[in-house]
């Protein structure tokens, strides 16, 4: 039930499960943590009630037992143990949310926020289809539901945000870690970096840390995960077909 194109994978340490989106089948697949070989998923969320449109990425909230999915112009939240044609518990959608073409998200169960990578039409501009969009991190209350405005918006030239990929959070410090590739169309695009913001940041602000440069060897980072025990930041680089691990104690 896996596809060749999967853009997220999350491990739930509390329940020892792996959760993966299959965007082609509009499905969320949950596997046992020790799954190997041709193992069947233990649960599959899929069907008309799910409202799943393009589940390219996701995150797990093992504390509140939820799976949170960016779903094009909305965010859908399922019970962790939902299976089959399940309805979302909550849907964040509508003009006030500013969500448009959401590409990734991360949920911080400690600071009670969901951070959504999205295209937005800049506030103050006409909110119609002719208004150019820009990339943004939208910070929502974790329990947001319906057409609600984000608590904060991080966007603008200073942020350097453009084509945001996998997100992670580090709840003890409130960090949001962002991979971004600047363009999908170039094999080695300029301006790529791993950025670290606080979930409390707002507006056109630069990341607290920006990881990039020739020593890093990064070409097109699309995935990031943390290993707090070893103070490591681990990156999947699409162009290099590689996984690179950095010792980065500053953020832990």
């Amino acid at each position, binding site marked *: *039930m*896996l*596809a*060749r*194109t*999967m853009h*997220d*994978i*999350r*491990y739930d*340490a509390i329940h*020892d499960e*792996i959760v993966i989106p*299959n*965007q*082609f*089948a*509009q*499905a969320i697949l949950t596997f046992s*943590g*020790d799954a190997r070989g*041709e193992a069947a998923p233990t649960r599959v969320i*899929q069907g*008309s009630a799910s409202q*799943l449109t*393009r589940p390219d*990425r996701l995150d797990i909230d093992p504390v509140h037992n939820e799976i949170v999915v960016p779903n*094009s112009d909305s965010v859908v939240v399922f019970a962790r143990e939902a299976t089959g044609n399940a309805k979302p518990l909550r849907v964040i959608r509508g003009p006030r949310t500013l969500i448009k073409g959401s590409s990734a998200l991360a949920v911080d169960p400690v600071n009670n926020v969901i951070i959504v990578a999205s295209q937005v039409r800049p506030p103050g501009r006409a909110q119609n289809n002719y208004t150019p969009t820009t990339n943004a991190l939208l910070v929502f209350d974790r329990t947001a539901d319906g057409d609600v405005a984000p608590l904060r918006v991080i966007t603008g030239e200073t942020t350097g945000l453009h084509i945001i*990929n*996998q997100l992670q959070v580090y709840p003890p410090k409130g960090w949001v870690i962002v991979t971004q590739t600047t363009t*999908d169309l*170039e*094999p*080695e695009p300029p301006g790529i970096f791993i*950025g670290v913001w606080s979930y409390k940041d707002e507006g056109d602000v*630069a990341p*607290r*840390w*920006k*990881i*990039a440069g*020739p*020593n*890093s*060897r990064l070409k097109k980072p*699309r*995935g990031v*995960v943390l*290993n707090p*025990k070893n103070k490591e930041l*681990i990156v*999947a*680089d699409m162009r290099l*077909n*590689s*996984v*690179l*691990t*950095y010792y*980065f104690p500053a953020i832990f």
Partner: protein
Amino acid sequence: MTSSRWVRHGVRLAVFAAVLFWVLPPGDPYRLVSVDPLPPTDGTACEWSPHAGAVAYAQALKRVSNTVDPTPIRVIHDDVATFSAVAVDAVRNEIILQDENLYEIRVYDRTANTPPNVPMTEPRRIISGPKTDVEFNCGLYVDQATGEIYSVNNDTTDKTVIFGTAAKGDVAPDRALHTPHGTYGIAVDEVNKEMLFTIEHDNAVVTYPKFAKDEEPPIRLIQGDHTGLADPHGIAVDPARNLIFVANHGSTHKVAGKPQAPNWPLTRSFAVPGSGQLWPPSITVYERTAVGDARPVRTIQGPLTRLNWPAQLSYDAARDELFVANDGDSSVLVFRGSDSGNAAPVRAIKGPKTTLSNPTGVWVDVKNDEVVVSNMGNHSATVFARTATGDVAPLRTIRAAPLGKKALAIGNPGAIGYDSKRDELLVPN
């Protein structure tokens, strides 16, 4: 001092006071308590310009990233070619292999055979580098008449690039065609001079004139709810019987909307919410000139078929046999072109002697009565007799790495996870 200079000093003092008022944190001992009135003027005031000190202070307040350029302490990377698709040029006696790991097209002597004690075989030539536009190269075709190599890029550049027989190193393709994002398989109909592609992301098949280039649009499109297309990969064409064969992994969803351009598939942006389905893998068969929401004329699907992530297809028209690189269970399956439903393959190459490992490419070489397989799992291409069946050793093997070296198989990683219980990294490809 003229009155205008007094005014300027006064304004600067006021600005500085205002800056102090706003930037000093609450509780700071230094608070602004009063501002002296401006001295009398003659009524002429100069245009205000910010004081250089105030500007510098404001800039200092604006956050600047702490940019770091750390050296990785560990890197997981496979520095050896990993072969996705294969083609055989029976005229020039060459085996062409797509290396999806290092983004190369490698051309080997057809009869090359890497001895067990030799680490690798040198190719005759390698096409690779930024000018080639080769990246995430999956589908492959070679024109027996001209020797031209057709290479499909699945991601990023959205191009199919065509190279001549002299191409070597970092060279621009002779021509390139803009193909939809997520194009995977290619088949060329040499009778009707057409190129056919599967579009993995959009569950579609598009057909172009064989010599189409640049922004030339497709001339036909198969896409729709009744097509049975589900994450399509390999494709083959039988011009004699006017049929198209398509290998499907099984993931699918419906699309609805107005096409952006003639015969251009509706993309994932037009996905119908909640319409996704997971079907068993299949081979769907269409009329060669089918268009739109065409139903397959036959479907090979079911547990007896043993299909499991079927990838590249190769069709032997003379014997009506369809060869399938069956990635999921490391086998090569052979079906009759006329098979339908839950049909068992007529032959299957599978087992430890075969050394097959995640084969995603297959090419039947009818001239030399051989079938050549590219293995994503072990850096090799393996050559069998065309009629080989069961657990048989290959006739020859071309290796890019020492015998037994497994491929890491990290391909286009879009994310990463960390299993803290097992201290393991999870990498979807």
